[in-house]
């Protein structure tokens, strides 16, 4: 589980830059599987493009259900990312900067949603926040709040699945950051909070941005936990992945169109933001 912390995207600056220079003579034994790997990952996306009904695309995109689902997806993924930033950044800081007993265990627990099947996450959320759940029962009887079948429920499901991406990225960035700046700030009289907001956060900004983008993209694609915990209702809990799945029940072409939109949005965000925030650094 410690591997997750050290294998972060920001670990790259410690790697020697000369690797790229020496890559001239790539052994075939590596190149061939690498290309096959790339083809394997990209081919399904090509398949989606090949089967897209381009002629009827405008009408299908204009269907009100599509836009409703897309809007809801963008909204919930963004809210989930904000929630993850509020909770995940302090958590990452704690893991990176504070020695406390059981830190390894905590780190392992934080990364569990990464490997947990999302449906299991949805069931677990139901058992805690559902109407009969540990906290949900109390929320319902005391405040009349029920989370399943609400947009808030979607945000929770997405945040549960996506937060580890943010925590791991930020923790890695914090570990890679030069702590002398923080120490200098402290000796100049800055308080711990000021040091954190004015020195640490700007220092790890690229890692933070990368983590937030990954988190957002994962939230956007969330399916299993959402349908299990939040259900499926157009305009309220039916996000794009759910709409794709249901479209598959009636019309493959609609499902292809919806998938294409999701793909375009994800690739655009990942390519655009990642390039700007990471490789520029």
């Amino acid at each position: 589980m410690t591997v997750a912390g050290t294998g972060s995207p920001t670990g790259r600056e410690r790697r020697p830059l000369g690797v790229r220079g020496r890559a001239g003579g790539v052994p075939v034994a590596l190149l061939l599987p690498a290309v096959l790997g790339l083809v394997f990952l990209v081919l399904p996306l090509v398949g989606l493009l090949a089967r897209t009904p381009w002629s009827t695309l405008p009408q299908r995109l204009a269907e009100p259900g599509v836009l409703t689902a897309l809007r809801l997806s963008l909204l919930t993924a963004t809210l989930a990312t904000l929630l993850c930033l509020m909770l995940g950044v302090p958590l990452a800081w704690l893991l990176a900067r504070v020695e406390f007993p059981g830190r390894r265990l905590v780190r392992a627990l934080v990364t569990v949603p990464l490997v947990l099947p999302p449906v299991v996450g949805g069931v677990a959320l139901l058992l805690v926040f559902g109407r009969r759940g540990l906290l949900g029962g109390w929320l319902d009887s005391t405040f009349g709040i029920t989370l399943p079948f609400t947009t808030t429920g979607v945000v929770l499901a997405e945040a549960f699945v996506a937060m580890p991406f943010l925590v791991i990225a930020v923790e890695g960035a914090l570990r890679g950051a030069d702590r002398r700046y923080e120490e200098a700030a402290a000796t100049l009289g800055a308080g711990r909070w000021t040091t954190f907001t004015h020195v640490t956060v700007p220092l790890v900004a690229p890692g933070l941005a990368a983590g937030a983008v990954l988190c957002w993209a994962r939230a956007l694609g969330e399916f299993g936990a959402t349908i299990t915990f939040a259900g499926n209702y157009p305009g309220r809990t039916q996000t794009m992945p759910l709409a794709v799945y249901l479209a598959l029940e009636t019309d493959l072409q609609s499902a292809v169109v919806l998938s294409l939109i999701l793909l375009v949005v994800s690739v655009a965000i990942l390519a655009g933001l990642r390039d700007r925030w990471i490789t520029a650094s």
Partner: protein
Amino acid sequence: MRARVVRTVAVAATLALAACGDGGSTGAGGSAGGVTGTVTVFAAASLTESFTRIGRDFEAANPGTAVVFNFAGSSALATQITEGAPADVFASASPRTMATVGEAGGTDGEPTVFVRNQLVVAVAPGNPEGVRGLADLTRPGLKVALCAEQVPCGAAARTALDTARVTLTPVTLEQDVKGALSKVRLGEVDAALVYRTDARAAGADVTAVEFPESARAVNDYPIAVLADAPNPAGARAFVAYVQSAPGQAVLTEAGFQAP
């Protein structure tokens, strides 16, 4: 969805293995009535319990056979079949879904209706909310789950609600009948419109409330041998077994009606 993908992969893998096995066993002779090998059955989610039992009975009656099931929403199964999933038999919860496979040239001969199913209102054990009929479902504060209209149980629910002139806003539109039922079992909704057979299969976890309008929204279940069946002999034998007296007995016991 992942579960379904895994299931499909499992079915495919089993088929691949069975294909190897078949090569050997056909040489050994189609001794026991000519039926051997794996029969892959794609069946509506609502058939899960009864078909699992029928599958075991069929294997016992035909030594050397193995029945592999892929249970899911009928429409999802139809898409998988028309997209080339290797299956021998398709049992759907609606003639319309079967027709989409037939139009794509996917069935071998005419499908036959082998059972019918009716809707009930599934509520928490003992019916604490006192639901008597569809009109009670519109009560404020009562949470209701329906199937999405794209799947047969949702289409039947729509017909029943329209017949009863009841307009209600469900909290969720589930992708198959099992999804709707599980929300009742978990206590997250107060009621769901599900098939009588699914409510019965849930045993003591739910109470089924019958309502008169369900008679106007009966679903016919057609079954057919598929045109590209890798094991056509096994497929025909399985379809015949489902329609035989022992097969029908299992289905009746599960709450299905004879066609």
